[in-house]
């Protein structure tokens, strides 16, 4: 019965080929936009989820004045503060770290701006007891992760870095003028670590100092400053004295731009974060796992709304074309509706027939839109894969949902015309014959 009904529906659609094709095309445009935008949102969400998993697995500490949203992470975190945080009730371990851009920024080259997470050096303290609760180990595609006891010139890299830079296992590569050996390439995570270069904290500190003229100058003056006695220092002008004091106090191992805190088992992470916040409110910004999770969710929801909103608008326009087509179709087929009702068709079966016809238009539009969308995504992703910056995530479940959605959209758009058809008076329809 259903095969027969379906054949009749397809035949009815084929009777008005041009109009049907135009309507299908209208829906297809909307579904195409939805598929492409949705796949982009999926990819971004995956990246965000990876970041969220990481950031909610620890309490992150940053020096006061850091603006995470604006990417201003140049301030230093005093090692004394980190040592004091280590003693706060509920804290299991604290580690300092440095995050810095892999490539030197070049404002004159727009190509250096990249979509998604920028290539980043992640300076890791390999001697610490600190462990991120959600991300203790990384899956490796080749080689291994850097560990305690490794020489300072070895690195492990994310999959996007490997693709983008064309770096392979055991390659000797240059980072900011210094040579490193790649000893591991991470499995694709579809998130932050894909764009990370994992390096020992000591090496990262050296690169960081090299990239910062002020710190570089302090480091260069350190040996000279150490030789100046207290008496000599007292005789110098204040400005000079302050500079020499800074150089004397400068220690490479104190350099951190951020800190990560883990909490003891059975302790509420929010309580620990609040305690740190209360005790060090003038020195650090504390990002609690819960608050960060909420902030990320909020940003993610906003981004999804913007991305999918546009696509939904296109779909709305498409659905109006279905309503229009179905109303036209019903007007033209008044006679048929009358015949069917005179043969004993119920209002329900007439409504169902027209709603299904609209559903079939929606599904055909969906199939076409998804088809074109997938084609574009595959071509685009293949092109972008060369640089490791795929911006779409193809997910079968999502595509299936889009197809079901296009069917439902057709049905919903067809409901009003279908009810109109069902309520048609047989005598009126017959008189129009």
């Amino acid at each position: 019965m259903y095969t027969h009904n379906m054949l009749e529906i397809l035949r009815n659609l084929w009777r008005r080929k041009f109009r049907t094709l135009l309507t299908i095309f209208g829906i297809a445009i909307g579904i195409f936009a939805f598929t492409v935008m949705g796949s982009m949102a999926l990819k971004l969400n995956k990246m965000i989820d990876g970041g969220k998993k990481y950031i909610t697995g620890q309490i992150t500490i940053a020096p006061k004045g850091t603006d995470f949203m604006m990417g201003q992470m140049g301030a230093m975190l005093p090692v004394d503060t980190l040592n004091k945080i280590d003693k706060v009730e509920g804290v299991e371990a604290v580690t300092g770290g440095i995050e810095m851009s892999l490539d030197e920024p070049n404002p004159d080259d727009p190509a250096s701006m990249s979509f998604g997470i920028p290539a980043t050096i992640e300076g890791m303290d390999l001697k610490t007891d600190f462990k991120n609760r959600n991300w203790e180990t990384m899956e490796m595609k080749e080689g291994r992760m850097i560990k305690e006891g490794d020489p300072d010139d070895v690195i492990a890299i994310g999959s996007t870095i490997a693709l983008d830079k064309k770096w392979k296992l055991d390659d000797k590569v240059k980072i900011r003028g210094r040579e490193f050996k790649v000893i591991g390439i991470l499995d694709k995570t579809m998130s932050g670590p894909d764009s990370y270069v994992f390096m020992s904290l000591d090496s990262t500190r050296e690169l960081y100092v090299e990239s910062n003229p002020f710190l570089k100058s302090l480091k260069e003056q350190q040996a000279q400053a150490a030789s100046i006695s207290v008496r000599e220092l007292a005789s110098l002008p204040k400005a000079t004295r302050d500079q020499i004091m800074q150089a004397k106090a400068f220690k490479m191992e104190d350099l951190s731009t951020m800190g990560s805190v883990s909490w003891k088992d059975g302790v509420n992470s929010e309580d620990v974060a609040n305690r740190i916040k209360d005790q060090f409110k003038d020195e650090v910004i504390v990002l609690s796992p819960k608050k960060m999770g909420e902030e990320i969710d909020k940003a993610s929801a906003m981004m999804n709304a913007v991305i999918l909103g546009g696509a939904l608008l296109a779909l709305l326009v498409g659905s109006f074309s279905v309503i229009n087509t179905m109303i036209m179709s019903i007007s033209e087929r008044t006679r048929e509706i009358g015949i069917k009702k005179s043969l004993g068709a119920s209002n329900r079966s007439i409504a169902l027939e027209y709603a299904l016809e609209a559903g079939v238009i929606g599904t055909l539009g969906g199939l076409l839109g998804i088809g074109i969308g997938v084609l574009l995504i595959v071509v685009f992703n293949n092109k972008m894969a060369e640089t490791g910056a795929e911006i779409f995530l193809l997910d079968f479940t999502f595509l299936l949902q889009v197809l079901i959605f296009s069917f439902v959209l057709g049905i919903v758009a067809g409901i009003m015309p279908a009810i109109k058809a069902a309520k048609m008076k047989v005598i009126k329809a017959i008189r129009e014959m």
Partner: protein
Amino acid sequence: MKNVIEAKGLKKIYKMSKTNIVHALNGVDLNVEEGEFTAIIGPSGSGKSTLMHIFGLLDKPDEGTLIIDGIDMSDLKDKEAYKLRAKKIGFVFQGFNLIPALSALENIMLAGKYGGMKMSERKQRAIELLKLVGLESRMNHKPNELSGGQQQRVAIARALMNKPAIILADEPTGELDTKTSLEIIELMKKLNREDKQTFLLVTHNMEVAKDCNKIVEMRDGKRVS
């Protein structure tokens, strides 16, 4: 003989405007017996089509009682009406009223679908009926590939699909030439004679009505004979 239709005091009023009220039926009594071939004749506006619509459950009387095949239609709800229409009543219209997108076979099968027949049963019965009306070889032809007479034969076969208690034929020869008209009337009479199929025919053509078992004449919404 059992009555297939028992109508008593049927009245139908159409309010066209506040002042223009049309008494389409003004107390019509009519019984149609099983196996009977009845013709309703009368001029335009006499109420014969309204009567057919009420018998076909396409409209409701304002007053009076109607019993079809033993079922009282007075309290019939719309949902029940379509089921009865599918199973008890067959229609043959003046303009054939076949669905253009469907073949002759599919047009006939459609009636079986609404009558609740299974798919396999539907096809078999539709082929039998096409044989009966002499159109077996045209079963896959669309209506626009058939002559007027052939289309009306298909419409008769469709009306027979659910073995109805009565077939209501509204001017079935109105769009046919004389020769074809006689062939169609002869086919209906044959079905009446051989299969005892009850027919109620509306016509203004006395030539068509003359051999019927009963002739009912309508005028100004009333039965005059």
